[in-house]
């Protein structure tokens, strides 16, 4: 153990480089979702009425509730970093745990939302959906792909934060070396930003 610690003291650390690496990755995520936002905007521009009719079927209350959940999870994530910076390990672990709980809450809501839609035959290839106008089919296609890919990011984020909890518990993430938690936080906040745009674009079309 002592030889490991000795070796660790000589390991080159570049926290700014680590954060920059994560930001560069986030830009590729922006392209991934950006392409779909472009597609959405053009299809909406070409099918304004169909998008309006289809969006009415989404549950605004669940959408708003999920927005509140994700915003709060971003808060707890940010607080967990401040806690570790103040050397409060148990508080940091508590906030990380809360973040994971909120992520799970978000996914549970998504589960109920999607199953209710499936139940009514509104899913890609579903009988009810295929009987509707092409614009509505496009809307729900985009809805499932975009919120689905976002949901996948939420699950991945929750797994990453779980790993961070283990790192924090084992003393790998400490008051002086918390860049792993910071970069995990950056990823988590990006997931939040994507939802900030998904919510009004899918749930709040008047």
């Amino acid at each position: 153990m002592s030889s490991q610690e000795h070796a660790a003291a000589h390991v080159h650390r570049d926290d700014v480089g680590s954060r920059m690496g994560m930001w560069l990755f986030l830009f590729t995520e922006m392209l991934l979702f950006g392409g779909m936002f472009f597609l959405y905007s053009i299809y909406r521009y070409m099918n304004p009425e169909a998008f309006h009719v289809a969006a009415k079927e989404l549950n605004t209350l669940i959408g708003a509730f999920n927005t509140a959940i994700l915003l709060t999870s971003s808060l707890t994530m940010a607080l967990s970093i401040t806690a570790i910076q103040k050397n409060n390990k148990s508080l940091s672990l508590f906030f990380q745990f809360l973040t994971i709980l909120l992520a799970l809450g978000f996914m549970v809501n998504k589960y109920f939302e999607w199953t209710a839609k499936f139940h009514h035959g509104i899913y890609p290839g579903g009988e009810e959906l295929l009987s509707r106008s092409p614009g509505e089919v496009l809307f729900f296609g985009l809805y499932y792909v975009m919120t689905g890919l976002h949901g996948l990011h939420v699950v991945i984020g929750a797994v990453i934060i779980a790993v961070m909890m283990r790192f924090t518990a084992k003393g790998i993430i400490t008051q002086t070396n918390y860049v792993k938690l910071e970069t995990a936080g950056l990823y988590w906040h990006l997931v939040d930003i994507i939802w900030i745009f998904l919510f009004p674009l899918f749930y709040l079309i008047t």
Partner: protein
Amino acid sequence: MDDSKSHVEHSHGYGIYILVWMALMTLTAITVAVAGINFGALTITTALVIAAIKSYLVLQIFMHLRIEQKVFRIFVFVAVLFFVITIVLLFTDYSFM
């Protein structure tokens, strides 16, 4: 606020995060409330402006851009700029089809 101090520490206190969270929740409530009113073409603009303000708060405070080295802010600015350029070109193209 105490910019010089946070530059050195590279951290925010708990308080500012809670303030930003309250602002984000308020903006969400506003965007839901406003969505019921029909401003015509302005409706989507209002929703996107509020979403942009929320993203700005998350980027600056939660993602630490405010206390990060300047090069990070330049990178994000350039990335967002090209995103906006792409969507403007896209709509210019479709508007004349």
